C-alpha cells in the first residue's frame, strides 16, 4: 500500500493542478477588465525590466564597440582629461594649454609610440558653391592621423604628411557632408570653402553612423597647420598617441614614457602634480560602466516599487475574490476540498494573474526595445535572461502576495461559508 501511495499522490496532485489551472483561466476570462487592471503593476514592472535591460545592454555593446574602434593601442593626452565635477574643471582651466613645443617633444622624444597626432577641433560653417552647412566639426590634424584615428576612407584618400607640412588646403570630408553637398557625385577634386579659405577635397570617409542620436559624420579633416592659419590657436590642442606595442604592458610603458616627456616639456618639478591627463579606452569604458552601474541600481529600485505595488493590488483583488466566492469555497469544502486544495486553487489564480501581467509586460518591453532599435539604430536586443527574470519575478510576486488571501480562503469554516449570502 505505502509503496504505491507516493506515485498515487503525485498522480492525484497532477489531476488537481490541471483543474486549478482550468479554473484560474476561467476566472480570469470571466473578469477580463478586472483581471487586466489587477495585472497592470506587474505588467509595467516587467515591461521596464525587459526594456531597460535591453537598452542598457544595447548601449553597452554599442559603446564597447565604439571605444574598441577608437583602438586599444591609442590613448589621448589632454589638458582636461575626464572631467566629472566643477572643481576638476576649474583646476583644468588653470592649466597651461598644450603647444607646438609639447608636440615636438613627444614626437622626438618618444621611443614607444608609433605615431603621435596633434589635433584641434571647432565647429564652423562649410560651403560648397552656394550651399552652406552650419556647425560642421572641423578637425585640424597632423599628418599620419590615419594611424591614430580609425577613419575608413570611402572614396579618394587621406591627406598626406607632405601636404600637411606644406600647409596645403586639402580636406577629407565626412559622409554627411559628402552626402548633402554632392549626393552621388564623386567628391574628389571638388572645392569647399571653410573659414574663408578654399580647400580641395582629396577623399571622403565611410559612414560612421550616429552615437546616441548624434551624427558622427558631420565633420571634415584638414591639416592642423592650415587650421591654425585660419582659426588661430585658441582651440584646445591635444594629442593622440598610438603605442607600438598594443599589449596592456606596452600601453602602460608608452603612457609612462609620454607622462615623463610631457612633465619635462612643461617644466614640472619633481613632486608637482601633472598638469595634463592621459586617457585610454579602458578608462573611458570604466567611466561608462560606473555611470551605467548607477543607472542599473536606479532601475532595480523603480522595478521593485512597481512590482510591490502590483503585488499589493493583486493581494487586494484576491481578498475581494475570496470574499465574493465564500459560498463557492464552502461548496468545495463540503464535497471534499482540503485546506491545501483551496489554498492551491487561489495561489494558482494569483500566480496566473501576475504571470499573465508578466507575459504582456515581456511583449510590450520587447516591442519597446525593437522600437528603440529601429528609431535610434542602437543594437538594442532583448536579453533572454531578462525575460526569464521578469517572468520569474512576476510569478513570485503573485505567489507571495497571493499567500495571505489564499490562506484566508483555506481557513474558512465549511458551514459558515455555505451559509454566506
Amino acid at each position, binding site marked *: 500500500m505505502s509503496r504505491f501511495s507516493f506515485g498515487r499522490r503525485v498522480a492525484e496532485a497532477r489531476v488537481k493542478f490541471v483543474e486549478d489551472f482550468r479554473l484560474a483561466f476561467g476566472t480570469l476570462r470571466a473578469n477580463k477588465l478586472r483581471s487586466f487592471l489587477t495585472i497592470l503593476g506587474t505588467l509595467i514592472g516587467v515591461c521596464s525590466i525587459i526594456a531597460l535591460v535591453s537598452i542598457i545592454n544595447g548601449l553597452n555593446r554599442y559603446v564597447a564597440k565604439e571605444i574598441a574602434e577608437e583602438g586599444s593601442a591609442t590613448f589621448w593626452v589632454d589638458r582636461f582629461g575626464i572631467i566629472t565635477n566643477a572643481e576638476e574643471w576649474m583646476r583644468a582651466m588653470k592649466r597651461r594649454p598644450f603647444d607646438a613645443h609639447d608636440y615636438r617633444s613627444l614626437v622626438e622624444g618618444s621611443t614607444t609610440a608609433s605615431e603621435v597626432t596633434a589635433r584641434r577641433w571647432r565647429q564652423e560653417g562649410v560651403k560648397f558653391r552656394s550651399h552652406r552647412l552650419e556647425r560642421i566639426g572641423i578637425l585640424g590634424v597632423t599628418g599620419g592621423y590615419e594611424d591614430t584615428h580609425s577613419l575608413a576612407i570611402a572614396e579618394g584618400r587621406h591627406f598626406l604628411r607632405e601636404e600637411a607640412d606644406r600647409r596645403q588646403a586639402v580636406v577629407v570630408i565626412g559622409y554627411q557632408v559628402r552626402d548633402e553637398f554632392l549626393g552621388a557625385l564623386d567628391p574628389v577634386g571638388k572645392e569647399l570653402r571653410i573659414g574663408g579659405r578654399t580647400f580641395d577635397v582629396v577623399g571622403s570617409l565611410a559612414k560612421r553612423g550616429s552615437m546616441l542620436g548624434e551624427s558622427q559624420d558631420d565633420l571634415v579633416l584638414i591639416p592642423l597647420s592650415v587650421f591654425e592659419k585660419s582659426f588661430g590657436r585658441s582651440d584646445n590642442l591635444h594629442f593622440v598617441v598610438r603605442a607600438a606595442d598594443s599589449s596592456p604592458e606596452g600601453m602602460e610603458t608608452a603612457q609612462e614614457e609620454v607622462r615623463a616627456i610631457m612633465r619635462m616639456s612643461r617644466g614640472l618639478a619633481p613632486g608637482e602634480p601633472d598638469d595634463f591627463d592621459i586617457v585610454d579606452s579602458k578608462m573611458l569604458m570604466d567611466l561608462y560602466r560606473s555611470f551605467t552601474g548607477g543607472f542599473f541600481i536606479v532601475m532595480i529600485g523603480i522595478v521593485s516599487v512597481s512590482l510591490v505595488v502590483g503585488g499589493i493590488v493583486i493581494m487586494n483583488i484576491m481578498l475581494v475574490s475570496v470574499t465574493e466566492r465564500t459560498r463557492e469555497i464552502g461548496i468545495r469544502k*463540503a464535497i471534499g476540498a482540503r485546506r491545501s*486544495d483551496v489554498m492551491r486553487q487561489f495561489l494558482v489564480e494569483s500566480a496566473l494573474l501576475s504571470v499573465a501581467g508578466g507575459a504582456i509586460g515581456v511583449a510590450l518591453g520587447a516591442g519597446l526595445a525593437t522600437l528603440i532599435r529601429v528609431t535610434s539604430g542602437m543594437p538594442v536586443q532583448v536579453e533572454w535572461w531578462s525575460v526569464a527574470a521578469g517572468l520569474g519575478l512576476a510569478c513570485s510576486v503573485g505567489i507571495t502576495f497571493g499567500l495571505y488571501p489564499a490562506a484566508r480562503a483555506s481557513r474558512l469554516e465549511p458551514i459558515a461559508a455555505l451559509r454566506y449570502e
Partner: protein
Amino acid sequence: MASLIEIRDVAKVYKVGQEEVRALDGVSVSVEKSEYLAIMGPSGSGKSTLMNIVGCLDTPTSGSYLLEGQEIRDRSDDELAAIRNRRIGFVFQTFNLLPRADALHNVELPLIYAGIPARERRERAVESLRAVGLLDRMHHKPSQLSGGQRQRVAIARALVIGPSIILADEPTGNLDSRTGEEILEAFGHIHGGGNTIILVTHEDYIARHAHRVIRIRDGRIESDERVPVGGRQA
C-alpha cells in the same frame, strides 16, 4: 456488526457572546446501512446541527460519533474533508452548484478532489447524470436549468463517488410541490439501490417517504419511530 452511524450522547455548545447555546444536548442515535431516515424538527431545534455533525461539516463538543466504526471526533480538518469527499454525499436546499461550471463539471467536482484522472472522472460523471436523467443537459450551466434539474444535478454529484450516506437538507424546500415529488421519487430509487439516506425536513409529507422518523426539539430527541410499511406513501 457495527452500525453505519453510531452517535452516543453527543452535545454541541456554541458560545454566542457570553451566553452558551446548547444546540444539541445529549443525542444518541444509531443508523444502519440502507436505512431511509428523516430528521424532523422546527427551526432552531438542532436538526441542522445534527446533520452537520453527521455530515462531518462540524464536530461535537462532547460525546462520540462513530462513522463505519471510526471515531470522528478529534479528526483534523483535512481528515474530515477526506471523509466528506468519499463517504458523504450532500444535497442542499439551495442546490449549491457552482454557477460558472456546467452540469458535468459540477458532478465531476468530488472526483477531482479524490484525485481521479480526467477520463475516468468523465465516465463516472456521465454515468451519474444518466442515472438522474440529465444526460442531455450535461453541458448546461445551472442558470440554464430548472430548479428540479438543478437538484438532480446535485443528486448526481452526491452519488458520483459512491458514498456511504446521502445527506439531504430540505432538498425540496426551494421547489414546487410537483417537482419536489419528483425529487423524492428519485431518492426512493436511490434508496432502492441500497443507499443510506438521511433527509432533514420540517414537512410531514416529506418525512412520510422515509422508513424512520426522528423528531428533535430543543437539542434532544423527542421521538424515534419506524414507519410501518403500510402507512408509508409510495
